[in-house]
């Protein structure tokens, strides 16, 4: 690989070329400096979505060992985030990595074509011709990217640079979010550093969800709709009820108020409702359920007007909406 290739790998460490580069540089053990760098990368991407400095630093960097460290830090950071067993860590890291990719690609059009080819065997002829299943598995978030609004023909969608950049960014997010690791196979030094990532997320969540009165007007559209249906006495499907309870639990609605939300439903039974609420809270079955992210809410068919939502999680959208009103 020449210097330009190494530079490319440092900017896009998820690329197949990066894996190839690393496999050619076999080492016996990961040096502690590299572990530190991976941890620092993970925390930086999780906490700040400003990538101008990093772009400037990597754009023309010529020091090969610095570039190599950048490439090697990424899979380690990914392993760290996956080893925490805290979904929010993977999600935060994934969102950071995805945002960084999109930021870089918007300044690097040649890289879009290269990555489209390497990741999806997609060729550009005016527009990119991308296999529909690759598109579906990496579909960006937002009404304008819905399959129904793309040009689909004979198994291929035809998309421009911007949409392809978003598909690649989503690919990065999903490859992190969907990663599962066997912790037993990981070195202790990595697991210790992973704990630090957990602490960061816990601190952020604590800050986001302060105790305080519930602001129903800040509910994201999906939850507002379920809430309105419950209050109108309409029959509400099990999935919707469950998602709604987990959402209310996550934004710290008092149990009594959660039960009261179901008061007008047909066949309301306070004891049963309390039992189900406690089950979702983990007080009955031992498993505490978290509110699913927007992607899952959407897959349940409960997402409405998602193009008005800024975040990828109903709880984050609630926090965001509440923050806006202050």
């Amino acid at each position, binding site marked *: 690989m020449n210097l330009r290739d190494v530079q490319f790998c440092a900017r896009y460490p998820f690329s197949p070329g990066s894996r190839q580069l690393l496999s050619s540089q076999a080492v016996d053990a990961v040096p502690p400096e590299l572990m530190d760098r991976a941890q620092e990368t993970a925390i930086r991407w999780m906490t700040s979505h400003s990538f101008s400095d990093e772009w400037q630093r990597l754009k023309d960097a010529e020091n090969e060992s610095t570039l190599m460290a950048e490439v090697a830090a990424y899979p380690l950071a990914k392993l760290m985030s996956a080893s925490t067993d805290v979904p929010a860590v993977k999600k935060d890291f994934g969102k950071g990595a995805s945002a960084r990719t999109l930021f870089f690609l918007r300044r690097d059009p040649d890289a879009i074509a290269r990555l489209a080819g390497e990741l999806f065997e997609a060729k550009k002829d005016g527009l990119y011709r991308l296999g529909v299943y690759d598109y579906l598995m990496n579909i960006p978030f937002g*009404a304008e990217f819905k399959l129904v609004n793309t*040009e689909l*023909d004979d198994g291929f969608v035809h998309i421009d640079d911007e949409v392809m950049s978003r598909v690649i960014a989503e690919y990065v997010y999903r490859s992190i979010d969907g990663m599962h690791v066997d912790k037993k196979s990981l070195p202790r030094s990595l697991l210790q550093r992973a704990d630090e990532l957990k602490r960061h997320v816990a601190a952020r969540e604590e800050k986001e969800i302060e105790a305080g009165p519930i602001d129903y007007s800040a509910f994201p559209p999906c939850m507002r709709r379920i809430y309105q249906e419950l209050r109108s006495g309409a029959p509400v499907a099990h999935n919707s009820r469950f998602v709604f309870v987990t959402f209310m639990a996550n934004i710290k609605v008092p149990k009594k108020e959660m039960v009261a939300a179901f008061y007008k439903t047909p066949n309301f039974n306070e004891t049963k409702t309390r039992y189900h609420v406690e089950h979702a809270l983990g007080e009955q079955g031992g498993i505490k359920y978290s509110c699913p992210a927007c*992607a*899952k809410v*959407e897959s349940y068919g409960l997402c409405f007007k998602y193009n008005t939502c800024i975040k990828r999680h109903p709880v984050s959208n609630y926090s965001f909406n509440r923050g806006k009103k202050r």
Partner: protein
Amino acid sequence: MSVELIKQMFAAYYEKHPPQAPPSFGQREFGFGSDKKIDYRHISFKNERDFQNYFISNAPLYASFSAGYYEFPDGRPMPKKGLIGADLIFEFDQECPHGTLFCPDCLEKTKQDTFHLIEEFLCRDFGVSRKDIYINFSGSRGYHVHVRNKDVQRLDGRARREIADYLQARNFDVRLLKGASASSKGWKGRAARTVRAFVENPEYKRYGVSAQFAKKVTERKDEILLNIDRGNYDVLKGADSRWESVIDSQVVHMNADIDQSVTLDMARLIRVPTTLHGGSSLLAAHANDLERFNPLKDTIAFHNYPVKVKVLKDVLQFVLNETTFGPFKAGEEASVPEYAAMGMLCKQAADMIK
């Protein structure tokens, strides 16, 4: 009494005609029912003989298998099964408004919906090869379309929702019509073709728009067509919402709550082809040659010899195996072929007289 008799008849049928295990049956979860469609599930089979013996011994009235492939298909709860992938399945089921036991009209409607899905969407837009599409008659009111290949097996819930949305043009941005032509790809082209077809022949009932709007279109037909050829679809003020109704005429009609969930739910259990349907006595049959397939003839499982039945409720005239039966009055005794008697039994419209 009837259920026991039906089970005996089903067992005798299965002894002579053991059902075929579905592809990759070792990785599938099975569910069976007699009182309900599925009384118990989380069942798996290691070999085809066990599968077939189960039918002979238990004669279930309903047999279903999973869209999903699992590492441990009998594991429970669900996460312990270890989902490997899932077929992509579409269900077309028509609630019959005609009150007859077997309704050729409704079955024809679901057949047309099935054609529309396969030709217009799966093959044309999604590029699915015909060899990866398997069509099964459900044994009762409609058809199941299974797409089985490596590409669809990896699709997650969100991707499947996206496909269901696509088939129904949900969230289609009608502003995309601007500049669209009949040769545009995907819904953009389909919408352009549909709007053009409507303007050329504005049958307002077929397209779900008002007679008043259709009249306006007729009056300015030439002008609108000229503009459409230039990619301009907003000659008439506020036409966007009307175009949405027109475009809706092309969507794949799936019952929003029931049929769609079959496509979305990877853990869904669906009728096993080559098994009998306890609600009709018909065979849930492969129907890959859909055009020639006759669901009320090719699926007859029982004999032609006459048996006596006592009719339990008024039954409208119905056609089965190209033979017309009835109408019957409640309390009436009648002699009908065994297959028709079984159909009436399964529909709880008659009892057999020994």
